[in-house]
């Protein structure tokens, strides 16, 4: 057979195999599964391109698993069906067929590109921040091709379908066990998905992930797998020699790419990141609106209106503002440990000291801290986040302090409880009017899984209220924020049903009195002319022999939450 004829045969065979791959039910199912995985990974938060592109890559890994299995089935078809002897009698050699199989992996490209395109469209539609990194997206495509090449390498030697399944599982296991390694080693697996800190970055960080080197590694692996597949089927000694050389070169490229990925992140980049974390004023864009200062990272300027709305909603109903100003500010909640591999100890200590000082000064400020990467893209989650911002603003407005006992890192860290304080109900009322969440969602915060939650304050069980978005981590200050009580919410809900003007008049007429932490819910209810909502149905009867109303799951030894005072 002439070389032109051989090339034509390869093209014809490749076209036929690629057509089968494109129409493979397995690949189509994998495409759907990978789309679902990417959707789940995106979650409800506002997408950041430097993170979303890597998440799309994990979807490509799922697609790669099925392409691996499908390619193994295709490459092992002749032997599996007992046709190997018949194929040997054909003029086309096994090596030529393997080349055709490898070329047919182009049939997996449409599915991969479709996944990338659809995911990119979703990311853009949800208001993505930043721009996509083409190298990372291209790495996803190369990963699918490399998986297919591995499938062909397996299929040429092992024709049983279980071999493909095991190969796919082995590839999947590399991704699920990436937590066993740390630092730069996480990039060595085909695609890691849960060890990086991309979601918490305020912008792209050069060298994190090392996209170019990772692309090179995947390309090297693809060539290596292809070489192995050809080596298994090659008949001539000369061809085997050439393939061995190609395999060694591919292995060397893969190792080189691995070494490049293990390099530390450029110091300048990390320096800038630490500055972004510690010296917020020097990097954030701050604007003042309605006497409230909003400080956001440069890429996040578009979030400003969605932050101003709940804050202004509260301010518009506040009879008088506190003397100390309020600041709404984005913060980074990064863990430097996984970023500072390969740097000198002195440098790392210096960065840590910078971060420690910044955190210590931040705790003394009155501010609403928004962790980067946790703000929702829209829908009910955005309403919840708005409510969280509104409630924190209202608590600042009615002077409920952010008091707590214990260490934030320990399990004994307990925020204060504004027990029987009129100002708490006022704060909740202000937040409800500012954001108008659904009544059902507010009511759902009274119980969790059919059980009422509560805190122990002065040896008394106090039913608490979980407000919308409280547990979602939209605010970094949630751990310090006061714990709302069920009684406060019930009174606020009753206040919402009253004419707003009437409530505003009662509040404005004695604002100083309502801010006093000694003023009780009952006094506020009496001033409004409404009965105090009963919470007796929320408190279980005390066990026989006990005089105090301990709640379920709590006891005399339960940790005591402090009372919000001053």
């Amino acid at each position, binding site marked *: 057979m002439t070389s032109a004829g051989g090339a034509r045969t390869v093209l014809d065979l490749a076209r036929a195999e690629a057509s089968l791959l494109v129409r493979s039910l397995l690949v189509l199912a994998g495409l759907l*599964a990978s789309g679902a995985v990417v959707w789940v990974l995106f979650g409800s938060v506002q997408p950041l391109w430097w993170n979303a592109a890597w998440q799309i890559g994990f979807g490509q890994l799922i697609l790669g698993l099925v392409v691996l*299995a499908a390619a193994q089935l295709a490459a092992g078809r002749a032997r599996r069906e007992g046709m190997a002897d018949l194929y040997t009698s054909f003029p086309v050699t096994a090596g030529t067929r393997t080349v055709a199989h490898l070329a047919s992996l182009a049939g997996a490209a449409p599915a991969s590109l479709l996944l990338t395109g659809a995911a990119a469209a979703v990311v853009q539609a949800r208001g993505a921040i930043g721009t996509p990194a083409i190298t990372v997206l291209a790495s996803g495509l190369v990963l699918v091709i490399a998986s297919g090449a591995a499938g062909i390498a397996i299929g040429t030697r092992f024709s*049983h*379908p*279980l071999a493909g*399944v*095991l190969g796919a599982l082995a590839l999947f296991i590399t991704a699920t066990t990436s*937590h066993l390694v740390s630092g730069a080693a996480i990039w060595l697996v085909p695609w890691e998905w849960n060890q990086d800190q991309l979601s918490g970055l305020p912008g792209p960080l050069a060298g994190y992930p090392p996209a170019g080197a990772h692309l090179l590694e995947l390309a090297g692996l693809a060539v290596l797998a292809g070489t192995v597949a050809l080596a298994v089927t090659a008949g001539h000694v000369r061809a085997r020699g050439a393939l061995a050389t190609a395999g060694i070169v591919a292995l060397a490229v893969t190792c080189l790419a691995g070494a490049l990925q293990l390099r530390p992140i450029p110091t300048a980049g990390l320096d800038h990141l630490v500055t972004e974390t510690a010296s917020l004023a020097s990097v954030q864009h701050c604007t003042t609106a309605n006497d409230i200062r909003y400080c956001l990272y440069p890429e996040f300027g578009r979030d400003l209106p969605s932050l101003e709305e709940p804050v202004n909603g509260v301010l518009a109903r506040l009879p008088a503002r506190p003397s100390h100003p309020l600041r709404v500010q984005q913060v980074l909640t990064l863990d430097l440990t996984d970023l500072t591999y390969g740097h000198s100890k002195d440098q790392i200590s210096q960065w840590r000291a910078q971060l420690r000082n910044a955190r210590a000064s931040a705790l003394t400020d009155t501010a609403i801290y928004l962790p980067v990467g946790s703000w929702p893209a829209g829908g009910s989650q955005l309403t919840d986040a708005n409510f969280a911002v509104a409630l924190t603003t209202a608590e600042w407005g009615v002077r409920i302090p952010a008091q707590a006992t214990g260490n934030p890192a320990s399990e004994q860290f307990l925020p204060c409880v504004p027990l029987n304080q009129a100002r708490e109900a006022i704060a909740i009322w202000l937040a409800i009017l500012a954001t108008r969440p659904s009544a059902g969602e507010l009511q759902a915060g009274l119980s969790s899984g059919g059980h009422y939650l509560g805190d122990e304050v002065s040896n008394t069980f106090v039913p608490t209220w979980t407000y919308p978005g409280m547990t979602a981590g939209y605010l970094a200050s949630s751990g310090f924020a006061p714990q709302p009580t069920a009684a406060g919410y019930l009174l606020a809900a009753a206040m919402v049903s009253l004419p707003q003007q009437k409530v505003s008049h009662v509040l404005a007429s004695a604002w100083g009195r309502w801010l006093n932490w000694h003023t009780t819910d009952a006094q506020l209810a009496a001033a409004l002319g409404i009965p105090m909502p009963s919470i007796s149905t929320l408190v279980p009867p005390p066990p026989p022999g006990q005089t105090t109303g301990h709640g379920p799951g709590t006891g005399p030894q339960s940790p005591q939450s402090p009372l919000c005072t001053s």
Partner: protein
Amino acid sequence: MPWGTLLAGCLAGTVYLAIFAHVAKNSGWLVGQGNVRLAFLPAAAAMSFVVRVPFRPLTQAVPVPSWVTPAGHLLLAAPILAATCWAQLCIMTQTIPAQTLGHPPAVYPLLAQLTGWCAVAIAAAACVARSRYADLGGAIGAPVSFAVITLASFAPITSRILVEPAATAHTVTIAWYAIAAAATALTCAAMRDQWQRYSSDVRSLLPRDRA
């Protein structure tokens, strides 16, 4: 009996778990039930190849019922599967330090879950074996069972009764054994079925007078 397939599936997962346990021990991690689940997937995949009978047209022609062969395969595979599960649980428990406070999580929901996985894989393969794709029974059954396992674990509706801690250990156990029972019933029905199913009407392909 596809011993090679079954042993390859069982050993692949067990070897992975042993390596993982070794690495985890040095890295300060523990091997949990999640790792055992992952390690059992190859064995479950292998089970979907066990039910296949390569010479079914021949076995249908002999006086012995055709379901005897696949049923025999399953009976022979059961002890291998049990031994694999035991070995993997042993590997898991060896990595738990002796001075650990409190009780480790119960194993019986895990056993129910793994039983359910195998039953689903077998049922999927047995159903495919009754179709025109009989030769790919295992190759289709394995991905189908993986898809079912994934959906059961992550879909909000099913995860409430099939996955801890959203469901209690008792609920998980009962739910997975119920699934296993249903899948076994489906497998029995598929194995007793004499005829392969074709998606298109073959009569339309025949000349009119013969149809």
